[in-house]
């Protein structure tokens, strides 16, 4: 990735629909050639943000720069962007092929070049047999692929993808994910990508922006976001199955910090605090997949518990236990699936945990 400058820069962006304020003084800098994924709960303003970047919504305040140019009042077509809409927005009266070629024809790309690009996009998206159909004769996933294709064929600096793979099956999604990654490698263009699929987010993103209620909570590399979420919301939002949260207290025993909840005392010697902690209520977070299951001793923290529920999920199984009087889940590979009411031993390294302030929810 050639991170040689800022490609998209959003400064103090605010937007409201009438009385409903959707984005609040939002700032976001995307480097050139970077792949940024927007994650966030439904209705948090992701599509709205993309629309603002594309110049399709009147922003209420702030400025938007693309490639160093202030495009706040620029036409969408002058911003050098391509976009995939969450709602597809295919041109109903055009065949798939014409849908794909429309932008190119507008730009005056030569005929054979158009044909070449369409052929390539159609191949990637596996929509060759559909090229002569109209959108109304396509299935949901096929429509979505056409919508992606419409962006892919264009040669622009910035791609905006709004949940481009949500209606596709896992297999195709995996394939297209790879294709998008390759395309990105090849074209080196900037991508801003909205998705709800965490695998997509983790595998594609250079950086992930986690949004909530129109505010970016954290913007960081995927692993950082995953391992060191800045607040409880981010921690809980990412990861499936979700992180375990345990309410308790932070206590200092001699020189060592501990986390205490009912009968459970977790030593925090290996935990890297953000800043010097103070004793008091706190929330302890631990991902289900970071918990070792029936794997012997040697863990800084170990315990035994009774299995309450077993939830098979295909490749893995989720085991529900009670720890410190609270629900606690552990992810277990299928072959090691215990039975209900079995007593099992667990262990983990608090290094992998996340501690949050009980009030503000921010990382400790």
């Amino acid at each position: 990735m050639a991170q040689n400058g800022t490609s998209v820069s959003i400064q103090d962006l605010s937007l409201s629909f009438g009385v409903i304020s959707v984005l609040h003084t939002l700032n976001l800098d995307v480097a050139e050639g970077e792949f940024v994924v927007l994650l966030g709960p439904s209705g948090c303003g992701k599509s709205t943000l993309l629309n603002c970047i594309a110049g399709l919504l009147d922003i209420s305040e702030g400025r938007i720069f693309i490639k160093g140019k202030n495009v706040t009042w620029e036409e969408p077509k002058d911003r050098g962007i391509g976009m995939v809409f969450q709602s597809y927005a295919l041109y109903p009266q055009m065949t798939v092929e014409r849908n794909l070629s429309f932008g190119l024809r507008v730009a005056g790309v030569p005929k054979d070049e158009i044909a070449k690009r369409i052929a390539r996009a159609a191949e990637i998206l596996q929509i060759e047999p559909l090229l002569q159909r109209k959108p109304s004769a396509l299935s949901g996933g096929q429509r979505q692929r056409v919508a992606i294709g419409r962006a892919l064929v264009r040669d622009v600096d910035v791609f905006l993808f709004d949940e481009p793979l949500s209606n596709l099956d896992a297999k195709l999604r995996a394939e297209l994910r790879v294709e998008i990654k390759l395309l990105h490698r090849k074209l080196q263009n900037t991508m801003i990508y909205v998705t709800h699929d965490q695998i997509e987010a983790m595998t594609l993103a250079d950086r992930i922006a986690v949004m909530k209620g129109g505010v970016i909570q954290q913007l960081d590399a995927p692993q950082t976001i995953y391992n060191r979420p800045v607040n409880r919301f981010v921690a809980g939002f990412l990861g499936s199955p979700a992180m375990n949260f345990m309410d308790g207290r932070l206590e200092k025993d001699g020189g060592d910090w501990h986390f205490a909840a009912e009968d459970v005392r977790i030593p925090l010697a290996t935990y890297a605090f953000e800043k010097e902690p103070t004793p008091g209520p706190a929330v302890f977070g631990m991902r289900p997949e970071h918990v070792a299951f029936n794997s012997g001793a040697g863990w800084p923290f170990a315990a035994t518990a009774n299995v309450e529920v077993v939830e098979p999920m295909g490749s893995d199984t989720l085991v529900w236990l009670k720890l410190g009087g609270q629900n606690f889940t552990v992810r277990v590979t299928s072959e090691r699936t215990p039975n209900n009411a079995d007593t099992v031993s667990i262990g983990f390294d608090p290094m992998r945990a996340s501690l949050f302030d009980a009030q503000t929810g921010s990382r400790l």
Partner: protein
Amino acid sequence: MTAGQITAIQPAQEAPDQAGVGPLGPKPRRISAGRIGLYAFLIVAALFFLIPVYIMIVTSLKGMPEIRLGHLFNLPGEPTFQPWADAWLHACTGRDCNGLSPGFYNSVKITVPSVVISIICASINGYALTFWPYKGANFLFGLLVFGAFVPYQVVIYPLIIGLSSVGLFASLPGIIIVHTIFGMPILTLLFRNFYAAIPVELFKAARVDGAGFWRIFFHIMLPMSLPITVVAVILQVTGIWNDFLFGIVFAGRPNWPMTVQLNNIVNTTTGVREYNVNMAATILTAAVPLLIYFISGRWFVRGIAAGAVKG
């Protein structure tokens, strides 16, 4: 999953017909009570609509003596096509006795460009008002709609003065302009309201695709406005083809449309009226709009934005 299982859970008494399984395959186009009612309504309505045209046709095939007898609904005793021939070729309008035919070409000459230009203008207006409203645009539109309520005769004077001052009075361009002007309010309304129902995402997508004002209009919006364009064509073709008032004043003597002749054949202050010729002439004049209604019908396509967006 096998047929055996199915029959097992299908007690024979529940579906006594063969193999105990009941309806199979596509639903037959059965004639339900609802459908009968529907057709009944349509046919009754159609009959109501057809009464006058029946009388017109019957009358146009009668001779004047038979008409004077006044048996309106009777079929012609001795059908004659003379009135039709007269209407088209021989009826007198002033000193010329060439029937309706001479004005036909003029009518076409006026109607085609007027319809095309007025619809293009109006659809651009509707499109701009919906997707590109600039400050004051809607106020202008309000004025336009307001103008639709003015009786023509009121605006005719300023228009005459205006057009003659630019030298377009009594000319083909003049009449085309006039038709465009008077078609504009309603047509603009027609298109504006139609475009307002189109999902705005389509417009957004086209803008991202780099298309500008005109290209979005011609490539995206216009093809989607088929049904409403048909309505516009119906309105305009009828209005302009049947127009008489403007044609006679603004088109100039050499361009007088067919309706002037129709009016002359049909109307007279103190002269003798030949009802059979009148009827034939009226039907003949209406033939072009009627043809257009019939042909344009198939463009009333269904689901114009189907598959375009979800939500």
